[in-house]
């Protein structure tokens, strides 16, 4: 057996376990999906709302699509992020983290399994939200470059995986409040990345942070592809920084997680359950 075979088998442990968790918590998954759909619809209805309130003429179809892309992309990225952080919080709470961390596998294998599941889960979750939202609005995607938009989204997931892995050290080290602390990271990214508005409306000092958020490029890239039908080749200007961020953030996330694990083993922080 090669190391790769061994590690892949071990990695599948996390995928299978997470599938089982989703199945066992199916009622909660329904509630979460319902919440996500209503949340996305609330955001999308801001489009017609602004048209109704405003005294000037506004292209409400464009605005609705702009907001829907924002909410769907954000939902996709944040679900990946939260799966990576919440599962560590759950392991702390259940007390299984010690069992997982004493298994003979690399941290890459451990987190790759979670990541693979998180990406597929998030795609499914997002597709359902998109499908239901589309029933409420007339979405004109005839000009959209769907392939290009999906490509930007997938490349952008890599960076969010890195951010999620790094953020997972919070529930690892702080079992009581670590999961809540991760909301701060996601809230900051939501503020600066232009999810529901163009980054240009932000004050300059916030725009400075926007350029370091992978979500900024994912949102700008998917909007260029889906709203304006930009050809895939021109999306390179968004994909290139996402590749660079992904290459940097995933190893940095793994490195930080490994440091946190060593710290927890030195100070005995793994013992305490939430």
């Amino acid at each position, binding site marked *: *057996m*090669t*190391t*790769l075979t*061994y*590690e892949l*088998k*071990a990695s*599948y*442990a996390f995928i*299978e*376990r997470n599938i*089982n*968790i989703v199945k*066992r*918590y199916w009622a909660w998954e329904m509630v979460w999906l319902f919440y996500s759909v209503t949340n996305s619809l609330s955001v999308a209805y801001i489009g017609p709302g602004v048209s109704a309130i405003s005294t000037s003429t506004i292209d409400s179809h464009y605005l609705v699509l702009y907001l829907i892309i924002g909410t769907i992309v954000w939902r996709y990225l944040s679900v990946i992020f939260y799966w990576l952080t919440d599962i560590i919080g*759950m392991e702390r709470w*259940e*007390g*299984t983290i*010690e*069992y*997982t*961390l*004493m*298994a*003979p*596998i*690399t941290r*890459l294998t451990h987190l790759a399994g979670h990541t693979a599941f998180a990406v597929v889960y998030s795609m499914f979750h997002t597709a359902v939200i998109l499908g239901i939202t589309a029933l409420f609005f007339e979405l004109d995607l005839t000009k959209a470059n769907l392939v290009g938009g999906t490509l930007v989204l997938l490349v952008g997931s890599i960076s969010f995986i890195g951010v999620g892995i790094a953020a997972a050290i919070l529930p690892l080290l702080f079992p009581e409040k670590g999961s809540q602390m991760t909301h701060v990271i996601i809230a900051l990214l939501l503020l600066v990345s*232009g999810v529901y508005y*163009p*980054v*240009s409306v932000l004050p300059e000092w916030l*725009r400075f942070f*926007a*350029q*370091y958020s992978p979500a*900024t*490029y994912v949102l*700008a890239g998917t909007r260029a592809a889906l709203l304006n039908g930009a050809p895939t080749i021109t999306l390179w*200007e*968004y994909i*290139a*920084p996402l*590749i*660079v961020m992904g*290459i*940097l953030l995933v*190893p940095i996330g793994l490195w930080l997680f490994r440091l946190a694990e*060593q710290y927890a*083993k*030195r*100070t*005995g922080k*793994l*013992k305490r*359950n939430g």
Partner: protein
Amino acid sequence: MRPRFFVSARDARLVSAVGFLELAAFYFYSILPIRRYTMVATNGIALDIQHVSKKFNQSTWLKRNGASKPVVAVDDISLQVQRGEIFGVLGPNGSGKSTFIRLLSTLLVPDSGHVTIFGLDITRDERAVQRMINRVSVEAAFFKKLSPIENLMYGARLYGLGGAEARAKIDAILKRLDLRADAVNRPMEEMSRGMQQKVAIARALLTAPVLLLLDEPTTGLDPRSKREVQTLVRELRDTHDATIVLTTHDMDEAEALCDRIAIVDDGRIVALDTPAGLKKLVARNGHEPTLEDVFMQLTGKQLVTEETL
């Protein structure tokens, strides 16, 4: 607004090159066969612990209030355990037993000293040591919404077992542990603590560990479940050639199961011998001394067990 690139094209090329090298290194590592560690010839010594200490610092808030003295959980412990031995660590709550087991489980890093398991250092050869050991903790830690089968499949796959192989092993072990067939597919949260502990033992056995670490495995179990677990421990040693380190504060259990016992108090070993040898350490006073007599005489404390609370 279009986002500005925050790196130059030159930087981007550099980062991409680093990423490519990382991937190449990972690919090369991946196609190598798994490194097979052979148990080093150790003259039958399964576990060698030399001057191991572990202390924990108090919280910052306590430090500010003048209570900054660190808690010494394991204090300069040295001992050796022979292959195939059932070695007991007997001590009251808070004596450092669980810290001791966590150190051997690679879940804690010793502040000083060395631990080798079949000749492999637990810090330097962590992954290889992890393949050889497994642990049953006092709390049966599982995903409680998942069934025993689902939890055990997770445990088996973590150690590289394939689906069919894992399923066959799980069936055999659950049968041996006499777990009811209707219980194995229901959530763990519906099972009694005794049943959950049996599943925890099954999880440890799945990986065929050569060193099994049992941290108070019978605490909180009813007498029948306790007897069943004790029978299993003996069977493990006899049929699986496993070396077992068992912590307990149950003196009868220690006496019944262990070949040798270390009595620990405040993180230190105060005596180490066979049960009979330990009893010889104290005066008879007209009756056969118990291990509790030994403990009281050696530490000046009473061994408070769960049953006496």
